[in-house]
């Protein structure tokens, strides 16, 4: 039995892997997280709509609903101590034609069935009174007061931050090549050194099915990545609407949402496009144009606003509608897969579910008594920012008001980003309206020698 053995190895550091790492570390397990990308949140978790969902429209009786609900509650509980910003926007689900209008009562009923009792119908006038910039074409809708706006990355960074702060190991840029379960422990061959653990959890996200094949020679499901493209409008546009505006959901997608972001912008998206590639997050201009048009049919004035950025994310959809959490007890192996667009809301709930499952299977540890808290910068436009606090040593990114102190704190922190994208997700640098027109050079200087993929070309 090797000495550097961990209780639990988690493969994949998306929002689910990070939440699991936190939960199991706090439970008292020794945890190692293996991520093949240079930074956490590099797959399905990097592009989403950043809404904390209540689960009002999740399939009744599903595991997904349970996880969203428990994840939602824990998020609100830990948000204060983990310094996670929340914008209590609430949501409106709107009907734009008579067919959609007919569906509303069923959706409200379902929301109540799902235990979201403050969902209630609103008439057209009431909606337009609350949101005067919405198109007069709307016919009716209902409100979901508990749908909130959060920071899509700070949450997962806080989870993994707390895990690492309390003893977990995070190995980035390390791919798991194969695994062997013998004599009650796993031996993992990786792209660097061998890793040993008593238990193994697949949080491979977009690669979950392939990872199953690689480790247990069996696929529990097949992933068909579903791409979602988004357009982010200028901060000025955020004054056009205060609630999150949701369409009537369909079987495959929640549809195109319009909402504010915690960073002070306005988001329109996502599309839902099935594709084969698990990596391709390309946007295409005709779809972006369509999204902009869609946005201005819902909020006509949006037409006059500039676009700050656009991006696409991939949801790891499977042939099943529910989450795919499977354990193979005899091999001390668990797959947590098929976590689609609700993963951000459900992550903490999934972690609790898995924690319970493990303890029922006899993996019991002694919980940490006074777990340490990670240092996380609040990047919310709706809360105090670092530049407002004396001693920030100047502003590097003027669009997003990112200070030199903030960037240096992250670069010199316990989990320094290894790519510019990682640094952007942690600080918002260069993510504003000029998209790096002013700060690219300064950034290249500050990060010189600190990134795995440098900003400059080495001859």
């Amino acid at each position, binding site marked *: 039995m090797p000495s550097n053995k961990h209780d639990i190895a988690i493969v994949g550091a998306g929002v689910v892997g990070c939440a699991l790492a936190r939960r199991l570390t706090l439970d008292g397990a020794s945890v190692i997280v293996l991520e093949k990308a240079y930074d956490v949140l590099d797959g399905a978790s990097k592009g989403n709509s950043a809404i904390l969902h209540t689960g009002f429209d999740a399939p009744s009786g599903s595991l997904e609903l349970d996880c969203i609900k428990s994840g939602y509650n824990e998020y609100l509980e830990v948000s204060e101590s983990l310094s996670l910003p929340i914008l209590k926007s609430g949501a409106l689900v709107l009907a734009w034609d008579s067919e959609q209008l007919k569906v509303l009562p069923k959706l409200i009923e379902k929301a109540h069935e799902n235990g979201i009792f403050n969902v209630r119908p609103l008439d057209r006038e009431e909606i337009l009174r609350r949101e005067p910039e919405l198109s007069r074409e709307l016919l009716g809708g209902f409100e979901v007061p508990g749908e909130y706006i959060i920071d899509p990355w700070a949450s997962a960074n806080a989870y993994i931050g707390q895990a690492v702060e309390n003893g977990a190991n995070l190995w980035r840029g390390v791919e798991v090549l194969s695994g062997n379960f013998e004599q009650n422990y796993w031996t993992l061959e990786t792209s660097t050194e061998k890793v040993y653990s008593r238990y193994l959890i697949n949080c491979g996200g977009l690669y979950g099915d392939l990872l199953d094949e690689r480790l247990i020679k069996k696929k529990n499901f097949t992933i068909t990545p579903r791409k979602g493209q988004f357009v982010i409008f200028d901060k000025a546009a955020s004054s056009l609407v205060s609630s999150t505006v949701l369409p009537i959901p369909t079987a495959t997608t929640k549809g195109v949402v319009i909402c504010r972001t915690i960073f002070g912008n306005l988001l329109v998206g996502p599309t839902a496009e099935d594709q084969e590639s698990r990596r391709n997050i390309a946007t295409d201009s005709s779809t972006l144009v369509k999204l902009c048009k869609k946005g201005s049919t819902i909020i006509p004035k949006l037409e006059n606003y500039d676009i700050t950025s656009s991006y696409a994310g991939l949801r790891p959809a499977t042939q099943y509608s529910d989450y795919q959490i499977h354990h193979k007890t005899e091999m001390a192996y668990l797959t947590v897969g098929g976590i689609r667009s609700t993963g951000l809301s459900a992550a903490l709930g999934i972690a609790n579910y898995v924690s319970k499952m493990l303890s029922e299977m006899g993996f019991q540890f002694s919980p940490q008594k006074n777990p340490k808290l990670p240092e996380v910068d609040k990047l919310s436009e709706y809360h105090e920012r670092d530049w407002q606090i004396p001693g920030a040593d100047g502003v590097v990114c003027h669009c997003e008001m990112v200070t030199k102190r903030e960037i240096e704190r992250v670069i010199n922190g316990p989990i320094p980003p290894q790519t510019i994208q990682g640094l952007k997700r942690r600080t918002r640098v260069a993510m504003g309206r000029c*998209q790096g027109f002013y700060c690219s050079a300064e950034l290249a200087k500050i990060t010189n020698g600190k990134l795995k993929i440098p900003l400059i*070309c080495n001859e």
Partner: protein
Amino acid sequence: MNSETVFAEKTCTVAIVGGGTAGLAVASQLKRLSIEKVVVIERENEVGGVPRNCDHYPFGLREYSRFLKGSAYAKRNKKLAKELGVELLTNTTVTKIRPNATLELLSKTERILLKADRVVLTTGVRESSRSQRLIGGDRPNGVITTGALQTMVYMSRFKPFQRPIIIGSELVSFSAIQTCAHLGIKPVAMIEEQDQVRVRKLFRPYLFIKNIPLYLSVSNIRINGDTSVESIKFKNSRGLEHEIETDGVIISGRFRPETQLLLDSHIEIDAGTSGPAIDQHGRCTDTSFYATGNILGHAESSGFCWHEGIETAKRIHEDLLGKGFSGNQMSHLRCDDPAVKFLIPQHLSSPYGSMSMARFYIGLNSPINREIVIKTNLDVIWKGKIKSRPLRRLQIPIPNLP
């Protein structure tokens, strides 16, 4: 938000937001006119603005009667301002605009509340980003604007790529070629969505000499590449897919006024220019604020901005002397021709009296060859035939008004 924010309070006569060409011109001229305390607020660590990063000629012909490189020109402007006694606050960001010529500032060490008699907005322009232009594809490193390229190359000697493609064909796109040449970077192509280059035609032979192929009327531009750019795909003028191997993309031109500060302020922004709306004296809708230079919605030469800055300073001087501009009653100016994209000034303060600005500036959406009418709700201000392509803004002398 922290309600207990502590501000160090300061006062001045005129505060100028932005230390580029226009800002330094206003400041220097105000000092020449003996205005007491003139402060320039610059968020970067050096004043001078865009020309600082332009290591090419020609700058300074009108101002200093000499051929200067941009960087030398910016230094001269700074030196002049300092010699005349302008206070330069660098590394200082304006975080909020308040009514009555009041600004919230953030320096490296403290937050300042600056109360001025007049404020001049000279924050200039920046290029549109890839996202604003809705350019699709992957998101590798190495896709940057000309501005970012110039800073990287001239200020830091960083080299972001070797064989980039240039999107856009404006003057700045051509100066991107010069910037590249500086470090031995060789652009492989220039592509433009319109059917002609967006500069005078005489620039085209330059591409021929540099051996850079030009593709016009392209559409559906798509950037390919995982961590760094590998190629660009687009539909060419005949609608055929075209792919060019490249290791970087320069997004050039389509300048937009830098108005972030105004977006959540009480000052009106004009939909046509995206810059602040001004009256014939250069005043914003809060008349304690002036705006001049490129922020008004064009991307002009430094010489032009310098001149505008000088003229604006003269008007502010008169304003401060109390010779002032009669009433603050502003009427909106309009031109209903669909080819007209914008009109500067956007307002006339009445009584019209002396017309401080000598010209209207007109921007076009499409070619025009017919009579247009510029009017307020009450009066026809100008009427005449214009014939032009929509390349640059047109200038029309403002007539004497009652």
